[in-house]
């Protein structure tokens, strides 16, 4: 089995060097009226280039734009839709980071592409394929609230997000994205909603064209849902192993008809994984499950780590693959 290396999604947008402070400094100056939106955009461009460079230097086969321009995983998309306004801060799952909660005020509509320009910029700056990442409709709907007195039902929000994101998936596919990653971590908290989740996902799958669609889960134990996830019409499942102590055995027992993204490198902790342990886990999964293809990656976005540690984690991916292939020093 060929093992590829990839980034998961986000990447630190700050570092301890002077250049690493560029975006934070520029945004702070913009807030004081000392810099313009255009100057902030230039700073975002530069930090995106740096994120791409560091991923390429780590020999990844697939990279992301690091979601450098995103305020958070929720409001960045919801805030671009008609029918939603952005409200106060809430904790993002069990992290110590916060997102701005969307308030759905009416019918959700996508007035313009949301990520296409950023994808094209990143792909132009990268020698490796860039994977656009979207937070999925189910997670967006669960992390939104309806405007008081507007009587917007959850199903209505879910369908609205699904419709808007399906248009974005089609636009990204048309722009040349080979693989698109849709993230649905909230399903792990509410597995009883599988039917509604599946229906919303179907709208995106229908518009992906010839692009591959990877479906990502993190910040929860995916093992109990694993068999059902195998029935979904997606090309790849991206799985966080750090919350799922039984996942290796679950996959080994059940196999996989889909390519798997193996989130065996903890994106939430600085400790580097023991290479022989990870090699054993990959061998166990790949041999028993007869995987068609697999990609080794962090368990989640890397923005939860300081930049120097995120770089080390990416470089560690190569070390782990070398260990698996018997090339380690």
């Amino acid at each position, binding site marked *: 089995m060929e093992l590829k290396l990839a980034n998961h999604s986000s990447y*630190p947008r*700050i570092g301890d060097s002077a250049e690493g402070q560029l975006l934070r400094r520029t945004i*702070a100056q913009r807030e004081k009226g000392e810099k313009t939106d255009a100057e902030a955009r230039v700073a975002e461009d530069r930090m995106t280039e740096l994120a791409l460079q560091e991923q390429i230097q780590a020999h990844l086969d697939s990279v992301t734009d690091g979601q450098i321009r995103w305020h958070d995983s929720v409001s960045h998309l919801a805030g671009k839709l008609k029918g939603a306004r952005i409200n*106060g801060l809430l*904790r993002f799952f*069990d992290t*110590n980071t916060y997102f701005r909660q969307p308030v759905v005020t009416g019918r959700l509509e996508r007035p313009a592409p949301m990520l296409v320009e950023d994808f094209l910029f990143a792909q132009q700056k990268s020698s490796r394929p860039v994977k656009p990442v979207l937070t999925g409709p189910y997670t967006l709907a669960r992390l939104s609230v309806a405007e008081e007195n507007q009587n917007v039902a959850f199903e209505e929000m879910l369908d609205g997000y699904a419709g808007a994101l399906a248009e974005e998936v089609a636009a990204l596919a048309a722009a040349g994205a080979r693989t698109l990653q849709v993230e649905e971590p909230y399903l792990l908290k509410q597995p009883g909603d599988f039917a509604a989740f599946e229906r919303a996902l179907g709208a995106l799958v229908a518009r992906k064209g010839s692009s591959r669609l990877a479906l990502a889960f993190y910040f929860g134990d995916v093992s109990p849902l694993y068999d059902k996830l195998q029935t979904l019409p997606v090309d790849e499942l991206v799985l966080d192993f750090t919350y799922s102590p039984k996942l290796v055995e679950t996959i080994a027992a059940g196999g996989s008809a889909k390519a798997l993204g193996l989130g065996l490198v903890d994106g939430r902790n*600085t400790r580097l994984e023991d290479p022989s342990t990870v090699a054993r886990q990959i061998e166990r999964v790949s041999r028993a499950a007869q995987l068609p293809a697999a990609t080794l990656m962090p368990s989640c976005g890397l923005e939860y780590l300081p*930049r120097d540690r995120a770089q080390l984690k990416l470089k560690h991916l190569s070390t782990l693959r070398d260990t698996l292939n018997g090339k380690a020093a």
Partner: protein
Amino acid sequence: MSREKLQKLGIELPLFPTTSVGSFPKPDYLVTARSEFAKRKISRDQLRQSERRATEFWIRKQEELGVDVLVDGEMYRGDMVAYFAEHMPGFEEGGLVRSYGNRYYHKPIIISEVQWPGPITVEWWEYAQGLTRKPVKGMLTGAYTVMDWSFNEAYADRRAACLALAGEIRKEVEALIQAGAKIIQIDEPAVSVRPEELPLAIEAMRVTTDGLPAYFITHICYGAFEYIYPGMLEFPVDNFDLEMSNSGLDMLALFRQHPYSKDISFGAVDVHNHAIEAEPVVEERLRKALEVLPKESLWVDPDCGLKTRSVEEAAQKMKVLVDAARALRN
């Protein structure tokens, strides 16, 4: 009710005691001093003078406003976890990670066995208590939150790191009690986000407080309480300090389903809003609380620390709390 425990500790409080969660905004001169200290333009002693001046300011301000149980305002802290990590061997300062938007903080890394180095907060508590006759709370961050908000490279897993921290933080609790602190708040804002780890957080709090003669409060905020209530009532503390207003008093519905059994420091003003609530609004929130809670159990405070407000806003929010509590007493 824990009021008897307070009386045994020699503390008499009025009905609906007023307090605050812990942090107050730093006055401009202290913000400047911290910046200059970071640039090595002033000495640690000069910074400390500014911190003491700001601490005295907030003690006097709380007295002036009529607050019943005071805090030192945490003028000497940057962050509630990093402060303890900076003082405890076993930690190193990590690089910057994002909190939200354009806000970042240095997240600590546990690199070896953590150790209590001797009193960390005691001198500040003694200084603050020396400025007032009213009780001043000892203020600590709990083991679970320190563990959860740090990277762990030293311990086998989260549980091992958490329980090791709990044992070391207990030594700080003992030192505060030795110094005379009767009310000690051990903040655990992280416990509400991993319901499956609630038993670990409770076990850690037990390690930290078991058998010690103090009235214990723990502050929890901005989480999914519906997943940890009523299990959280097993925490070995006397008083939960809870964010209530920001979440529209949602927790009262949970209290109706399963009776609440401890004292409560009821967050009656929103700390993330510049607007100062009108006194009748706060009074109404407290009256709603009294529909499901015994009056002897109700303390009155803000949702969370007020450090993100301006000095004037923080003082005004505290004033409206005190006014509402007084109106209720009458």
